[in-house]
């Protein structure tokens, strides 16, 4: 039986997805969550939008709603500000858990376009802002006595792209 599919369709509690997260780097502490909601109460994202609730997202993982979580944008809305982690009484590292979720989602081809674009830029240029570095900014740097030659390395990211970003994630 396709357990993940069944869980997603029927919302039957299942811990197999939580176990999968536990096995990822950063996901180790998910089982410590007692669903107290301190994370949501501390979260600036939750304070400005109704769609994002970190406690609920953790609950969805604990319930095994694998496909629902992996295909959603919600795990990508965490700013990793770690205010929730600072307040969590059980030492649950939510930012790390959501990174683990994102990594699994990415492997299965679910990367929000904004992330995908930024990742493609970094893997091409070696840094984020090559296209934004204009002559005007170069002049400002010169006036301030700073190097105008920024000398970013592109070769290393090309190597990483070849080794770690085959297939879906870097079309």
């Amino acid at each position, binding site marked *: 039986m396709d357990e993940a599919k069944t869980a997603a369709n029927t919302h039957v509690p299942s811990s197999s997805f939580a176990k999968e997260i536990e096995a990822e*780097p*950063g996901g180790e502490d998910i089982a410590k969550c007692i669903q107290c909601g301190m994370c949501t109460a501390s979260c*600036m*994202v939750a*304070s*400005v*939008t109704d769609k994002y609730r970190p406690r609920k997202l953790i609950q969805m993982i604990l319930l095994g709603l694998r496909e629902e979580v992996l295909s959603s944008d919600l795990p*990508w*809305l965490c*700013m*990793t*500000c*770690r*205010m929730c*982690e*600072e307040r969590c009484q059980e030492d649950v*590292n939510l930012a790390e858990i959501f*990174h683990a979720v*994102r*990594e699994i989602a*990415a492997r299965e081809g679910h*990367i*929000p376009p*904004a*992330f995908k674009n*930024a*990742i493609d830029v*970094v*893997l091409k240029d*070696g*840094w*984020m*802002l090559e296209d*934004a*570095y204009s002559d005007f*900014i170069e002049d*400002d*740097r010169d006036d*301030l*006595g*700073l*190097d105008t030659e*920024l*000398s*970013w*390395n*592109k070769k*290393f*990211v090309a*190597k*990483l792209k070849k*080794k*770690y*970003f085959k297939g879906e*994630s870097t079309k």
Partner: protein
Amino acid sequence: MKEFALYAGCTTPVRLPAYEASVTKVLEKLGVKLIPMKDVNCCGAQYIESVSHTAFAAMSGRILAIAESMGRDILAICGACSGSLKIVKHELDNDEKLRAEVNALLEDEGLKYTGTVEVKHLLQVFREDIGYDAIKAAIVKPYNGVRLAAHYGCHVLRPPEIVHVDDPENPTIIDRIVEIAGGVAVDYTGKTRCCGGPMLGIDEELAGKIGTDKIDNIRAANVDGIITACGFCDIQLTQVQFGDGTEGKERIPVLQLTQFLGTALGIDAEALGISLNKISPEHILAMQ
């Protein structure tokens, strides 16, 4: 003279060169020399970090290994970069398998991570390497009671057990330097909350709401300006004051800690790039 390898990151050199220049000049005045790192890459924060933990560790790991080859500890001036480099250092120091994988990737460049360099954020250099007494002794043009709100930056402060910068719930380094320079450090609601910067690339509307909430809280404390120590936070806290719904509201200048401190140390405002600040801090500088 103490020397650090400067890792300026992606954002600061392009979006906020005045921060890079003011850091370099202020630290030099206080006896710390910076050697800009060459041939580096992005630290991998947020984007690569989200999709491949190993590639992220390799990107920050390479920066750490280059600093080792320079024989210098790293100064990182952006919250995201300092956070990434410290987290990856922590992992490479504690995970032999990851370290071996990263070192295999670095081998053909003659680089190797062995764990000999430290990573410091600017605030740590002020507190640990320069010290409050030396800063105080170097003030030649003190401020006269200017009221300032400190914004520290999430990735500068958290996770505290790895970054070791300041008390994450009640940080004091910026506030102390504000007071040493003759200003009044003003507390406000949500001081350690995020500026919304990391949301900018994902959902600009949400990022704007989070930043505006911060600005509203700061405004309620009746301050003359905001002092930051992260390029990304500076950019976000400035630009949310130009978005929808800000018409007619007085804008609160955002100053880098090094710009604020620099003029008090007698460094020329032009050399600190203050004329490049999008919200003029003239009235702050007039209180000297």
